[in-house]
């Protein structure tokens, strides 16, 4: 199964989880079966491109998104695309995945969604 983590810089397991979901420069996609790591640049409208971040993430085939936090519309769209969303991740992508595996992260809902862009 593929996991997606919005990352701060050039992506990869050692890159840091980006606090701002929509404007993360990269999305790091990890296949839990093969351990294959794929890095997708964020080319959504938030970065001057086309489409919304959840559309781009859905195209990677990811079934789980692990991030720091995100807004209610983003949650709705990801859920609509069949992607499970977990919030509260911090540290590197690798650490975030470990935390998710250990059940330490919160499943996203409107109750835990970001109300604004202040981190």
């Amino acid at each position, binding site marked *: 199964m593929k996991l997606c983590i919005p990352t701060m810089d050039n992506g990869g397991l050692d890159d840091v989880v980006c606090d701002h979901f929509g404007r993360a420069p990269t999305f790091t996609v990890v296949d839990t079966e093969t351990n294959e790591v794929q890095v997708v640049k964020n080319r959504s409208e938030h970065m001057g491109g086309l*489409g919304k971040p959840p559309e781009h993430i859905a195209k990677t085939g990811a079934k789980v998104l692990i991030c720091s936090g995100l807004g209610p519309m983003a949650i709705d*769209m990801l859920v*609509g695309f069949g992607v499970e969303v977990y919030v509260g991740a911090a540290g590197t992508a690798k650490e975030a995945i470990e935390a998710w595996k250990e059940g330490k992260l919160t499943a996203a809902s409107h109750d835990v969604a970001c109300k604004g862009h202040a981190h």
Partner: protein
Amino acid sequence: MSSESERRPTRIAIASGKGGTGKTLIATNLASVMSDVTLVDLDVEEPNCHLFQKAECEAPEKAYRPVPEVDEGKCTLCGRCGEVCQFHAIVTLPKEVMVFSELCHGCGACSMFCPENAIAEKEHCLGDTISTSGEHFELLYGRLRVGEAMPTYLIRQVRGMIPGGADAVLDCPPGTACASVESIRGADLCILVTEPTPFGFHDLKLALGVTKKLSVSSAVFINKDGLPGPDIDGFCRDNNIPVIGRLPLDRDIAERYSRGELLISDAGYRAVFESLRDRIMEVTVR
């Protein structure tokens, strides 16, 4: 020589790059010395011309923007609506279509191109439009609903309500973004109000870039003249932009303005605006 009857109605936009340079001061007083004129406050996010018109407010009329409403029974999730939307306001998910009504510009492309005729347009309230008559001018303005992010559609609606036969003075929102572009577009003359400060000068140059791109001829009004700042006169001379009027930096002007008074009740100030009016007529006559 053109007589009054040969002139077609003139649209004079009063704009500025920097805010707080004196657009409303110039617009209200200019309109007051013109005859048969409508003052149009296009700063729908923060209209204030009405503060200078002591008139009973007529009932506001609600203004709407059409936004798509998808009939899920007819929708086949083909995604055509999202492809044609230039504003990313409609997204097709695997089981539903999501509409971002705050991004929608009301252009109607989604409903026009929907092959299943599944998209109807419902009305989204933008705010209201208000017209009043006062002693010095007819006033028309829009008031954007609090929380509404997009002023352009309402600005277009207010502009569409300007009576055809009369001249109009358009008090535009500040800046160089969508709202000011929508307000300046199509004007016969744009008067850029500026002040001799580094910000005033910098943003004047940006605003001149907008009027040039819109092919609207521009003139400059220097407010707070006498501040020891950049040489705006010299800049205008070098770039062939007429300086069409000026007001000095004067506490008396600020005090009158803060009380909601028009300057034209004073003969000296009145002369400034009458001469501005006459210069405008010279510049815009065809």
